[in-house]
């Protein structure tokens, strides 16, 4: 693993990475509390522990590059600049929600930020991301699509079809497998024929296996720069396997007890945020600067929560809007 070593990123970049990770963490930690309070409804899938993947990639992306994520997509949305208030609003099912309450936690989308959606059917967004990349290629826009998905996703048909076609078309897309070791409650190793669910499949598509420590944001960023560069340069897709861990359960109230306690604790010790803070301090970053970043995040999260709490429930009228581009849902005269 960790086939790359931390880039000598400049301080601004590194503080930026830290800022994004911390913001994600605070946002989601609070979201979980709010779930237990009954404010976040339905379901919610947290990426706590996986922030380095989102932050490392987002920092390497051009503003108009496309992000495609899963139901576990809050981190990716935030890392691309999606505002927290409407994000909470969506989780609460409020009228100020990013999608007006129509999408919910699993479908976070902020087209304005080129966050092209969160997809809740495992694997579906890999072909779709490939399509966005093909479009960029056709339009010669220089854009790249980055598609995030889990380890479990590597065993579904759409994965295979998307990887092959992307490779054949040399589409500018980077497929990023966040291998957090588990699907819902079952370990990926129990149901997969190879040890590295993504990397060990790369050669099936003529691609290099790329494995990165997904808890090391510098390493992720370096891989992101390389693979995005490759895509933008016309050299086609990449498949990256980022090894990471979700600190909590799969979704909702899942306590994640199917995981051995020592496994959990060893990964908690490798928390991408605390280890990165330590690294930054070790290279001389002032602790006060880091504290300030954390305080800012806390404040932003609080403000977002307040805004969403104040927002009204959506009006039932919107149920029948926005099926079609004319804003309506009319299917007859």
């Amino acid at each position: 693993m960790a086939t790359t070593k931390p880039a000598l990123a400049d301080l601004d970049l590194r503080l930026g990475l830290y800022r994004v990770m911390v913001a994600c963490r605070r946002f989601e930690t609070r979201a979980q509390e709010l779930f237990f309070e009954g404010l976040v409804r339905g379901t919610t899938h947290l990426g706590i522990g996986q922030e380095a993947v989102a932050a490392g990639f987002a920092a390497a992306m051009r503003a108009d590059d496309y992000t495609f994520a899963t139901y576990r997509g809050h981190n990716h949305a935030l890392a691309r600049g999606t505002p927290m208030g409407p994000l909470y609003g969506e989780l609460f099912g409020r009228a100020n929600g990013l999608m007006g309450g129509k999408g919910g936690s699993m479908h976070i989308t902020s087209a304005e930020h080129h966050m092209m959606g969160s997809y809740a059917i495992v694997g579906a967004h890999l072909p779709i991301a490939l399509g966005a990349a093909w479009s960029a290629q056709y339009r010669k826009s220089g854009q790249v699509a980055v598609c995030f998905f889990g380890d479990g996703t590597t065993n579904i048909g759409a994965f295979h079809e998307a990887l092959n076609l992307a490779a054949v078309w040399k589409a500018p897309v980077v497929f990023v497998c966040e291998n957090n070791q588990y699907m819902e409650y079952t370990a990926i190793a129990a149901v997969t024929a190879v040890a590295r669910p993504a990397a060990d499949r790369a050669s099936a598509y003529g691609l290099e296996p790329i494995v990165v420590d997904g808890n090391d944001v510098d390493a992720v960023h370096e891989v992101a720069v390389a693979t995005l560069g490759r895509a933008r340069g016309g050299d086609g897709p990449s498949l990256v396997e980022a090894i990471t861990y979700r600190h909590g359960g799969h979704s909702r109230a899942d306590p994640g007890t199917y995981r051995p306690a020592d496994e959990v604790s060893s990964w908690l010790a490798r928390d991408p945020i605390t280890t990165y803070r330590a690294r930054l301090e070790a290279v001389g970053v002032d602790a006060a600067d880091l504290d300030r970043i954390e305080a800012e995040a806390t404040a932003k999260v609080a403000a977002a929560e307040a805004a969403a709490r104040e927002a009204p429930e959506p009006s039932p009228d919107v149920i029948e809007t926005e099926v079609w581009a004319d804003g309506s849902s009319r299917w007859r005269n």
Partner: protein
Amino acid sequence: MAELTYRAAVAAGIAQEMDRDPTVVLIGEDVGAAGGVFKLTEGLFDRFGPDRVRDTPISEQAIVGAAMGAAMTGLRPIAELMFSDFFAVAWDMVANQIAKTRYMTDGQVSVPLVLRTANGAGLRFGAQHSQSVENWLMAIPGLKVVAPSTPADVVGLMASAVRDPDPVIVCEHKALFATKGEVPDGEHVVPLGTAATVREGTDCTIVAIAAMVSRAAEAADRLAADDGISAEVIDLRSLVPLDAQAILASVAKTSRLFTVEENPRLCGWGAEIVSLVADEGFYSLDAPLVRITTPHVPLPSAAALEDAALPTVDRIVDTVRRRLDEAK
């Protein structure tokens, strides 16, 4: 009689069949050690072991296809699709392979399997995890489809589904998992294709399935109390085979039909029922046939929106009252 939740009835229904027949096996995502993401299969792994209760990768085509191949060769597999929306990723296996193989082989090959799935809305899961897909299934010749509304029917229809020599889809409704009901002691079997009259009435017939049954029944109570309208409520339970006679007999008595459908409006099971009555029961009708459905939109996730999108008791009451009034 024991009181069980609908959730526990699923595991009990499966266990009843696994106990009876060693060729019954269960596969699906997280159905084993974890007992299912909705805890619908809890205890089965411990009781029947890893050979009979197997976890799978996230590979719905392989899950459903494997169940088919096993059914063709001597097993009676039960495969779980975690959410009914995921029928879409295995739709070829369901609609083109499982449904058609017996016919295409002129009866050489049978496919006695059960596909079970968490169907329906109410949990604020949004458009890709809340669909009611009975109508997708009903439209495919070669599939049997049941949708129980009570714990007893879960057990009884599961038994019939597993024992049936043809493929049967069991739609388990997510919004009902926590509901409770009496389940008869001993072996309990409900034949496929028998509707249940939940409430007798003379002024109109309301047909519903799954989570809409209790709403229809509550609406009928209110219509009786507030308006003196006597509504007969029929729980179809089984869409294929369909108890057409029960519907026609009821409409012969009431002359009026309403359906209450959770699925989006177009081409639902209700359209089939209405069409059947509009043909065979036409002369007993004295007013329009009315479908009360979710509008033809994907389901929104916000609680306020999801609640208002599905047919509510209020909407059923209002619609029945208004349409009967109109017809006077």
